[in-house]
């Protein structure tokens, strides 16, 4: 059965999403166990696949039994093995944690919501595993459509901001499709490895340059890289908590994976870093992204919206790291995909716990939270330390790689931006934690207010949160192993 892991990890979720949506018409209580089982199988096969990749090297799985340039093949190496594990584990934990909040926020539409949730995970896993440029577009659209539907189920202005997300997302996906078309017309192939083999004599062609720029811009729109980030904060803030805690950690990171895949496999580092001299301007854009994200986050008075601006800044970290053009920077970027997915998940799970109990997450609502929800706030402190980059947590290590990469490449502005954003994060999070320590204002005189009783979120929400928080520390402690055993092999030898 281990031969079939690459197929299982997308087929089982896809089939169970269909079964969930059909089962929803019969008995709504069936949906959650099916979803958990499906994502459990997916996570199991992702881990099994990563172990196999570590033993045997890259795995090619031919779908339909056709050899790669003719048919579609899955191409799993160290890079996507790692990202697959992250995606499936994050989705699994978030599903368990979100059960209560889904039931609270969408009482009569749980079944389609679970189906869309599982479809979204299917799409993300497929994007990461696939080795075919066009197949990636179809999977991108599955992810996008299910994401729109889930995010639009929020309150207030959720629908308007989701519609804006839909416009931007469609532009991004279409640009990517157009870029693939340009590649197709000059190479005649759609398979990533095949394209990379045909491309070298064509590096001087204007069409290849055009394809590269269009693909890159398309992926940037999807990942909300700086000048194109306007859709992200509103869309993620107003969505239901279960949806935003799935989409916020995963979608932008998977898009960064796609960008790295385009650089490393399709266009090859030789073309991206040496022939095109665009590394410098892109790193400057990343610097701008980090500064803008940090400053806009400072201006926010709403916890969830503040976190979304931090995501914008984090996207800047990873894009900048990937474009430094050296091994350390790339290692930092890939490591940060893992870390940032976990950090963002942890922070958004905290927000969804707060939303479950308080019905609001503006800063004024948070007063006295430490006494009310001590465990949730404990996890929040760990997430904050990690986002800031304090040593035992994982955030420190990826930032360390990014900063040393910046120094090696001589891009001091990027280093300054990283340090600046860490500083701003310190301010941001300590402000939040300080507010949480405040007692709520009493409206009577003197001492007649009682300390509020503890009202912690239910155990099904707390346990996954603790697992994630522990994961932040564990990944930090085992960073050396991850880098030496996995990421080291994920980056081609040509990058020094």
């Amino acid at each position, binding site marked *: 059965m281990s031969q079939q892991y690459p*197929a299982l990890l997308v087929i089982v979720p896809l089939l169970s999403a*269909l079964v969930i949506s059909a089962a929803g018409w019969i008995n709504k209580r069936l949906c959650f166990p099916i979803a958990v089982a499906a994502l459990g199988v997916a996570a199991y096969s992702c881990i099994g696949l990563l172990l196999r990749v570590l033993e045997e090297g890259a795995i090619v799985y031919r*779908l*339909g039994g056709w050899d790669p340039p003719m048919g*579609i093949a899955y191409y799993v190496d160290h890079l996507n093995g790692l990202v697959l594990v992250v995606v499936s584990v994050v989705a699994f934990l978030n599903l368990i944690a979100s059960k209560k909040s889904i039931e609270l926020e969408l009482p009569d539409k749980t079944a389609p919501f679970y189906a869309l949730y599982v479809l979204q995970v299917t799409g993300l896993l497929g994007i990461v595993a696939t080795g075919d440029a066009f197949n990636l577009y179809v999977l991108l659209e599955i992810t996008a*459509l299910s994401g729109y539907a889930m995010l639009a189920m929020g309150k207030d202005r959720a629908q308007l901001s989701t519609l804006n997300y839909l416009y931007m997302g469609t532009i991004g996906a279409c640009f990517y499709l157009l870029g693939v078309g340009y590649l197709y017309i000059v190479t005649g192939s759609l398979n990533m490895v095949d394209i990379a083999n045909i491309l070298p004599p064509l590096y001087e062609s204007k*069409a290849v340059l055009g394809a590269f720029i269009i693909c890159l811009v398309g992926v940037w729109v999807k990942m909300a890289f700086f000048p194109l980030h306007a859709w992200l904060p509103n869309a993620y803030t107003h969505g239901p908590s279960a949806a935003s805690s799935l989409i916020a950690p995963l979608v932008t990171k998977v898009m960064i994976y796609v960008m790295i895949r385009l650089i490393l496999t399709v266009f090859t580092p030789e073309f991206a870093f040496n022939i095109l001299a665009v590394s410098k301007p892109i790193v400057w854009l990343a610097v701008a992204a980090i500064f803008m994200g940090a400053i806009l986050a400072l201006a926010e008075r709403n916890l969830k919206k503040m976190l979304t601006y931090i995501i914008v800044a984090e996207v800047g970290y990873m894009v900048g790291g990937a474009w430094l053009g050296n091994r350390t920077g790339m290692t930092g970027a890939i490591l940060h995909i893992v870390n940032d997915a976990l950090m963002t998940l942890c922070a958004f799970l905290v927000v969804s716990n707060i939303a479950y109990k308080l019905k609001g997450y503006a800063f004024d609502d948070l007063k006295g939270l430490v006494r009310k929800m001590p465990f949730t706030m404990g996890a929040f402190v760990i997430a904050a330390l990690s986002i800031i980059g304090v040593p035992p947590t994982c955030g420190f290590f990826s930032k360390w790689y990014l900063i040393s990469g910046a120094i090696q490449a001589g891009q001091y502005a990027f280093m300054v931006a990283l340090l600046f954003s860490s500083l701003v994060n310190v301010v941001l999070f300590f402000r939040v934690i300080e507010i949480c320590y405040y007692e709520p204002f009493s409206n009577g005189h003197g001492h007649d207010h009682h300390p509020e009783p503890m009202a912690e979120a239910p155990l099904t929400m707390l346990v996954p949160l603790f697992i994630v928080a522990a994961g932040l520390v564990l990944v930090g402690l085992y960073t050396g192993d991850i880098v030496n055993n996995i990421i080291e092999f994920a980056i081609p030898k040509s990058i020094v």
Partner: protein
Amino acid sequence: MKILGLIIALSTGVLLIYATGDFPGWADPASPASLHLSPHFIEKTMEETSVPNIVTAVLADYRGYDTMYETAVIFTAGLACFILLRIFVREEPGDRLYRHLLTGVTVRVKEGAKLPPSEDFERIDATWTPPDLIIKTICRFLIPFIQLFALYVIAHGHHSPGGGFQGGVILGASIILLAISQDLRTSVRRMREKLDAVLCAVGVIIYAGTGALCLLLGLNFLDYSALASVLHCDPVTARSHGILIVEIGVGIAVMCTMIWIYNNVSSTGKYDEGL
């Protein structure tokens, strides 16, 4: 905003025109796109899948995995429209309009009130217009033929243009035509919402399930030649039959999704009054 939009559109256009400079000439038989993969498809399809329509063969077999997700995209869209728009109401809210068939008198029934049990009253839409005999009759005659043609398109996709998508859309369109020419309640009576939603999933399950069956039979996912042992034929014919099976799945899924989306959009999720 206008100037910004103009600048973005123009700069995209300039970039694209610049990149077009190095394209091979239009319709050039010697362009890389015509030389790398497509000769294999054109020359080997008949041997390998025994399907004369190359587009169908590539769509459902060589790149069948894409098509499976394409069906899943359609399904996702249907589910998305459902979750976004559908409003479940126990009691029908607001006023309802009834028309007395013999006299043509229209009766407005207040919320919660009931009509006396009588066969002479017909529920009508708020935007009701007197029925046009010609349109109603022609549509009633046309719909069976449209559906027959759709079935032909699905079944004959191996030999002529067409296949699951086109046939599914036409089948869906026939029901939508019924909803437009009569009213939404008539078409929903023919195709209940629950049946529609379940069939929608079943269509995709047929596709993905065929693939999974191949996997269980010991070959790779979607490798239809594994079906040879089940269908008692040689692997090449099995591929041809496999394509037909998945096209049927696609047809069912697309038909139901189109109806589902139309019903939700045209009644804004209330399922009472259509276009």
